[in-house]
């Protein structure tokens, strides 16, 4: 793998940019692997990368039914933060944020991680109390978090509507300064390149259609390109988790919903941070290209159509225009939906399954992007050692029968 640097850039510029080599190979599918990862999104590629790098397991295939990063990895609003209320979540997301902080260097690939801060707005006294409680919980867990009163909020983000007479006036906000955004495609590409360099086979256009299970133990996967034997199989397929689990005879507590987002035409720099509001159910940041990136709440019915209803867009834009009247005449350019796997407690499942050698990493719901590095890191550990990393030990499938839920609905300070 050629090292990317200012010198490779200069050398390729001088030769007309026609000597760049592929960032990863397109190898043929082998009949046998030590580990097969199903799903070539950020989480799956990160898992393969850490399997190779941290655990020395390089006979690995990542099977992707479409193309690398073409699912939810390319459909999220790129927000990265770790200000979750509960200890279990704080541990998981903070582990991830620490990996984000060194990821560009680690992968030798510019993921454009920008720690521009994430603000969660409070619009009334009670919401403020709730958010302050979370600030204190975050600090006790070593997660940076601070409370800004109304004046400080408007100083930090002057384009916010400061009119106290609106339906949801700004009362205050929490701010996590280490939070921010990252270039989502680059995360998938960087991990793909790193995993490939370590010997991982990335197989695109290869859909898994079933599992081979021999006496309660995984033996391989059936795909649209033939049967592949594997000692262990890790499944990281977001919205289709229930479908894949069904193939192995496992029921999951997951429902699949569309989650919509949209972007505006590019503007000059106007919004330097990420603003989220739970009460009005909208969040907004500005990409480096200048587009406003706007997220909505999920549609409330089960659907695998990557589309969603217009009413959600309308409600989101109503909220955005009240929060930022300055954006009222901005044109929206594109709208899309990803299909997300929502757990009843809004926390993921990163765990061994009842079938030996089968592992699932799913249920990230509306907020999985931020966890990409940490998720891959602990999932690789779980697969390699056949036991969870202490960080993902609470995120089992069994918690739904034991009652030890990690109930982050609302507690995460974000509209789910």
């Amino acid at each position: 793998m050629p090292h990317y640097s200012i010198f490779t850039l200069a050398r390729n510029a001088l030769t007309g940019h026609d000597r760049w080599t592929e960032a990863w190979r397109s190898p043929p599918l082998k009949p046998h692997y030590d580990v097969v990862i199903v799903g070539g999104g950020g989480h799956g590629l990160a898992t393969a990368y850490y399997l190779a790098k941290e655990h020395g397991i390089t006979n690995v295939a990542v099977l992707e039914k479409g193309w690398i990063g073409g699912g939810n990895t390319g459909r999220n609003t790129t927000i990265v933060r770790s200000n979750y209320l509960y200890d279990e979540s704080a541990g998981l997301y903070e582990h991830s944020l620490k990996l984000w902080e060194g990821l560009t260097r680690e992968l030798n690939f510019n993921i454009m991680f920008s720690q521009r801060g994430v603000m969660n707005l409070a619009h009334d006294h009670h919401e403020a109390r709730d958010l302050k409680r979370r600030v204190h919980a975050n600090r006790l867990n070593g997660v940076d978090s601070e409370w800004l009163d109304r004046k400080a909020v408007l100083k930090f983000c002057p384009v916010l509507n400061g009119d106290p007479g609106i339906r949801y006036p700004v009362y205050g906000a929490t701010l996590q300064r280490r939070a921010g955004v990252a270039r989502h495609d680059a995360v998938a590409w960087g991990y793909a390149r790193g995993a490939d360099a370590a010997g991982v086979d990335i197989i695109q256009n290869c859909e898994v259609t079933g599992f081979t299970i021999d006496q309660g133990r995984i033996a391989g996967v059936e795909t649209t390109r033939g049967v592949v034997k594997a000692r262990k199989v890790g499944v990281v397929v977001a919205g289709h988790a229930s479908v894949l689990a069904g193939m192995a005879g496992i029921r999951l507590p997951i429902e699949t919903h569309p989650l919509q987002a949209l972007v505006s035409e590019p503007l000059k720099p106007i919004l330097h941070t990420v603003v989220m509001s739970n009460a009005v159910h909208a969040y907004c940041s500005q990409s480096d290209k200048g587009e406003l990136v706007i997220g909505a709440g999920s549609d409330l019915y089960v659907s695998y159509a990557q589309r969603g209803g217009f009413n959600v867009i309308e409600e989101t834009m109503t909220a955005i225009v009240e929060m930022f009247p300055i954006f009222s005449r901005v044109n929206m350019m594109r709208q899309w939906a990803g299909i997300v796997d929502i757990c009843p407690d809004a926390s993921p499942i990163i765990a061994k399954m009842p079938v030996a050698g089968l592992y699932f990493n799913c249920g990230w719901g509306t907020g999985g992007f931020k966890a990409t590095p940490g998720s891959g890191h602990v999932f690789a550990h779980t697969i390699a050692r056949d036991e969870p990393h202490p960080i993902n030990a609470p995120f089992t499938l069994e918690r739904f029968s034991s009652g030890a839920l990690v109930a982050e609905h609302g507690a995460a300070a974000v509209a789910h």
Partner: protein
Amino acid sequence: MMQIPCPWCGPREQQEFRCGGEAHIVRPADPAALDDAGWADYVFMRRNPRGIHRDMWNHVHGCRRWFYLARDTVTDQILAVYKVGEPPPEVDADAPGTAEPGR
């Protein structure tokens, strides 16, 4: 976005409705005898099919009554609508049922 055929009010915009989730989940007949896994199955586990799904809807901004839809979750097409207490009609994803198809 779907246009939903309320069995009492006729076709209305989806915005007028709230989805109540998977239909026909039967409360355990003998709750006291149920173990933890049985409770988890009843409370949390869902079919979540890629294909035909039957879900409950409430016409919250209309007649405020509950009813059932059979929908194709891949296309969001509505295949059948039926009232509470009515037997669930057979549906075939390839042959749209009696109801107005969703858009």
